[in-house]
């Protein structure tokens, strides 16, 4: 059933609807916030010191766009990891790369929290070294985990899963150790960073992440059919002509690169990568050619709204967005599971 002909009408219909919802969500979330906004004022003098324009274009829009990219990327990575590891519990937070990125980011926050790297000689602005350190941590941990899990040129799903979980546990211990030896106020900052936040005003960072995530996603999408075959079992996939060894390695590297970049800029925002793939599987079925884009779009919509709630719910305080994703996502997922029964949950 997983290899059946792609229903093009369903494909266009589902993704078109989700894309429209995503655009509406971006507009809606940019207009919503804890403070009132005069839209006509905001659009009049965009480049002068105009508070409404600053709220709209500096405080909100980049943040909403970042949320869409991170939500989409996390959900897409969740889909491919659940297929690759053949485990419904697989998620971006699990494979070790996120732990490595966290540790890199924490070390950056401790040792050079304010260093800036000029882009194109400062013409395009500057970006903080903290996400770069986090990405470096992600790359190093990816190489390590890859080496640990490679046996006879093949990435074994169980090895990948176990080494990822154990690596994350180890990194978690290192992070808690670092957190307990730094200054009291710095420790608070580290905890906040770990909890994850989409707060940003840097279009440059948002642009980088968008380009990166979209490219990664498109590449994963091209592997949709092979992913369908892999979920049938490795032997079956091989018999059907999929180079499973190479595919597994490529997908692991691609999703690790995406997750590393996402954790680097937004910290550990959990639940999107675990839940959205399952929800979309219940809604659109498990054909990865459709599931991947649908999850990408739905993840963007979900995180965009979750972050808006995080900004609004406890005004003036801002909640960690991870709390919202778990609080609203969990019960919704249970509801879908209850309604449709467990039968469709199988990969």
């Amino acid at each position, binding site marked *: 059933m997983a290899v059946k002909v792609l229903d093009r009408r369903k494909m266009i219909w589902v993704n078109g609807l989700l894309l429209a919802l995503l655009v509406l969500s971006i507009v809606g979330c940019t207009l919503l916030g804890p403070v009132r906004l005069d839209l006509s004022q905001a659009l009049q003098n965009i480049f002068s010191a105009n508070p409404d324009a600053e709220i709209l274009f500096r405080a909100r829009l980049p943040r909403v766009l970042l949320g869409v990219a991170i939500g989409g990327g996390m959900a897409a990575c969740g889909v491919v990891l659940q297929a690759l590891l053949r485990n419904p519990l697989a998620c971006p937070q699990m494979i070790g790369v996120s732990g490595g990125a966290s540790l890199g980011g924490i070390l950056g926050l401790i040792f050079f929290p304010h260093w800036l790297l000029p882009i194109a000689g400062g013409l395009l602005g500057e970006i903080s070294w903290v996400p770069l350190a986090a990405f470096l941590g992600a790359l190093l941990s990816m190489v390590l985990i890859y080496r640990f899990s490679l046996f006879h040129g093949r990435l074994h799903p169980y090895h990948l899963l176990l080494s990822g979980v154990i690596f994350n546990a180890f990194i978690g211990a290192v992070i808690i150790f670092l957190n*307990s030896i730094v*200054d009291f106020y710095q420790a608070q900052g580290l905890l906040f960073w770990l909890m994850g936040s989409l707060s940003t*005003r840097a279009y440059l960072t948002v642009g980088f992440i968008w380009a990166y995530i979209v490219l990664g996603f498109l590449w994963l999408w091209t592997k949709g059919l092979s992913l369908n075959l892999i979920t049938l079992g490795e032997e079956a996939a091989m018999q059907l002509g999929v180079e499973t060894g190479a595919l597994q390695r490529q997908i692991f590297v691609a999703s690790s690169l995406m997750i590393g970049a996402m954790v680097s800029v937004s910290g550990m925002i959990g639940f999107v990568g675990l839940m959205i793939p399952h929800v979309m599987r219940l809604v659109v079925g498990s054909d990865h050619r459709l599931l991947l884009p649908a999850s990408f779009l739905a993840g963007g919509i979900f995180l965009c709204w979750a972050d808006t709630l995080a900004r609004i719910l406890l005004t003036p305080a801002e909640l960690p967005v991870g709390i919202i994703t778990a609080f609203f996502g969990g019960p919704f997922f249970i509801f879908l599971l209850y309604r449709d029964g467990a039968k469709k949950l199988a990969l």
Partner: protein
Amino acid sequence: MNTMNHRERIITVYLFAVSLIVLYCNSILAAEAPGPQRVVSLAPSVTETLFALGFGDRLVGVTTYCDYPPEARRLPKIGGFMSPSLEAIVDKKPDVVIGVNTATDPAKAREMERLGLKVNLISVASLNDILAGIKSVARLMGSSEAGEKLVLKIERQFSQVKKRVAPAPRRSTLLVVGLRPLVAVGGKNYIDELITLAGGDNIAGNAAQPWLNLPDEYVVAKAPQVIIEAGMGSERAAPAQHWGDLKSIPAVKEERVFSYPSDKILRPGPRVGEGLEEIARMVHPECFAESKPGLKRRNGCEGSRP
């Protein structure tokens, strides 16, 4: 000799003897000074309070964060601020353990009590709490007068600053202890009271939480006239850089974005009076102009002074 009769002589000797006994008893009492002799402090602010009251020599254990006054650094350590070591505390054989109720876990306090330690936790939620806490620590140490004197000194510092900034109009103020994320002083926090006393108006003062994470748009909408970054380990240029792109914020436009890491502001101890003056100097520099020549005098303070 005839002038002093027998009875008078007896009374004189009697009085002399009584006064000797009284003096002797006094000296015994003086040698055994009142109050606990061995004290463990579980918070930097408590350590500062004990030193300010003149009981620094009775401290037998402090946290690794206790670095003021400098003598405190040399005292034996009993662990961190949030995570003191029970073993280390018991090992010091203290007569009393003093901490603050926001940092010391109540379960840990009960555990210490079960081990036979006398535990005293003071509240530091408001300025009143801080002053009452200083008095109660002084009472506990057996010298209520020292407490009254120290509190009076702090209250005098408060009223001096209040008088200074009284003529100036209130300036909306944001005080943060971190930029990423933006952690601000909310309501129900003694620093919120300090901002008000300094002639400021905390833009997050209506929040229910004492500390909160603020979204950028809230800061833009509230348009603070003064932004203070008081967090430890912040770099001088970082706050100005951080806010640089939000030109509509008056604090950014008028260059009132300050980076001022200060224990005096962040520690709810005997130096809060000095902390208040530090905040006031940033919120209303013009009111302290004579002590800092070269600063431009702006409206408000010079208005009332000829």
